[in-house]
């Protein structure tokens, strides 16, 4: 076993217990920690103090890039690089550049959203130290867990253990990295 563990894990029996425990971990100021639950728990994101995802901003950046790309593409090809009059229309007009820009807005937004989502959520993840814990399978069935990671600046094997105990955690165990 290495000197520094991955973190501490504690077991909870009901959604209500883990929900209120999460609120206290949040209030204690921890940042690198997680709740493991077999089912979604309404309002848990708030109880954990999670902020809204930044993915929409990445999407917006992708959308703006797509729109500008579309407009530039049509202007570059039709009015600058190879000026050609088609159907008596002006060399460039946002009118006919718009469908292309619109499609590229959607395409680039979709790319940005999918890629942004995977970058932000860290998937695919082939290994996680929690999986070594032999009781973790109950977390897919009928038990709830809170994991506080050792890399959290507030982490301290003794104090964090006391906190987990105080908020009602059972079977507090050190996780191997």
């Amino acid at each position, binding site marked *: 076993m290495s000197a520094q563990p991955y973190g501490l894990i504690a077991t909870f029996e009901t959604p209500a217990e883990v929900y209120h425990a999460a609120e206290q971990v949040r209030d204690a100021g921890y940042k690198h920690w997680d709740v493991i639950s077999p089912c979604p728990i*309404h309002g848990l994101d708030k109880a954990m103090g999670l902020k809204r995802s930044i993915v929409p901003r990445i999407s917006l950046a992708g959308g703006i890039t797509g729109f500008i790309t579309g407009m530039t593409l049509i202007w570059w090809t039709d009015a600058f690089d190879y000026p050609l009059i088609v159907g008596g229309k002006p060399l460039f007009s946002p009118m006919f550049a718009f469908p292309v820009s619109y499609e590229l807005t959607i395409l680039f937004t979709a790319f940005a959203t999918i890629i942004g989502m995977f970058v932000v959520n860290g998937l695919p993840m082939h290994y996680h130290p929690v999986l070594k814990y032999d009781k973790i399978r109950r977390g897919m069935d009928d038990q709830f867990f809170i994991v506080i990671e050792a890399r959290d600046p507030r982490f301290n094997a003794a104090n964090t253990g006391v906190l987990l105990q105080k908020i009602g955690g059972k079977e507090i165990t050190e996780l191997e990295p």
Partner: protein
Amino acid sequence: MSTPAASAPVHSTAALAQKALVIGLAGIVLTALGILVSGPQAVAYSWLVGISYWTAIAIGMLLMVLIHHIFDASWSVVLRRQLEHGLSAFKWLALLFLPLVLATLFYRLDLVWPWMNPAHALAGHETVAGDILYTKKSSFLNLKTFIGMTALFFVVWIWLSARLRKASFTQDADGDVKWTRMNRVTAAMGLPLAALTLTFAAIYWIKSLEYHWFSTMYGVWFFANCFRGALSVSVLIMLWLWRRGDYKGILNNNHLHSVGQLMLALTVFWAYVTFSQYFLIWNANLPEETFWYNLREYGDWWGTGLVILFGHFVVPFLLLLSYRFKVTHRTIRRIALWILAVILIDLCYNILPAIKDAAGHPKPFLSFNLLWVLTSVIGVGGICCWSYFRSFPTAKLIPIRDPRINECLTHHE
């Protein structure tokens, strides 16, 4: 008329109903007086704007309830009850539409719709009766089908609304799931009916004002405005009930977020169809289609078009992208009010340029006649609000025995 607060489960709306009725009647009287000032035609067109505006919002509410049922939606159960109250306005809208038909029949055939009078002189040398573009369309565009279809539209809307309201209100009392099933049946047959009726209503009432024109997007444009109007009114109702205290513990941010998402989606949808209509006509560049937009580039209509482009799409689109704006009461209320105002401008843009001056140019948008548009909107709107407030106490605040009510109350992203 007032109910003692102790016996009523919700705050009474009797005073509000009375206020709305007074405002509505005042608006109607003022509009009627407008005939003496601006002449019957300008006022009739204004009335058409007012009646189309509120009918569009009512149709939007009908669509929202039907879509709610067809998808077996859960998050919108609470909101649905308020929309059902709104649906009570259709019978009054039918009554308020009547003056236009009566004035056409008994006062002047081409008061509003020029094609109703075969002897109506067109710019140049001919009349409607000798106009090939009219005669080809005359089996569709004639007085009898207009009156018959308009009556049919209202019958369909009133009938669908009555079914939806009855099933929903009765379920409050007996909790029988058969009412939910009945609503699902109503939704399945009602959606195609609503789609067809609103499309034909848009064509008969608004598009046919310039019957030379062609556009296959028109019904979809009207649909988008109907839906956006109803969503904006939904937001105002939700926030009003929250402010009054009725919705405390019922409404959460996720309801507002969901409505806001639909507002964003329909904003994009509106822009998509409106742009498509413009773009296809611009690109094909055929005189029998472009004239419609050429008229709308004359005078201050050009600026009005830009106000619609930016006010109806760009600004709401950018604002509604934000999560925080969608759930902040003050902001989303302002966005909803803004969209409602621009829908009115959009309807004016589609209706009013049909009135021409002696030189064949459309009369300007910013003119004294705009006053009658406002009195018409207030008049019809007052009656619609009165109908809503009158219906409000006849049912529980929320459909307490809807099978999905719990899911709705705990609505989560």
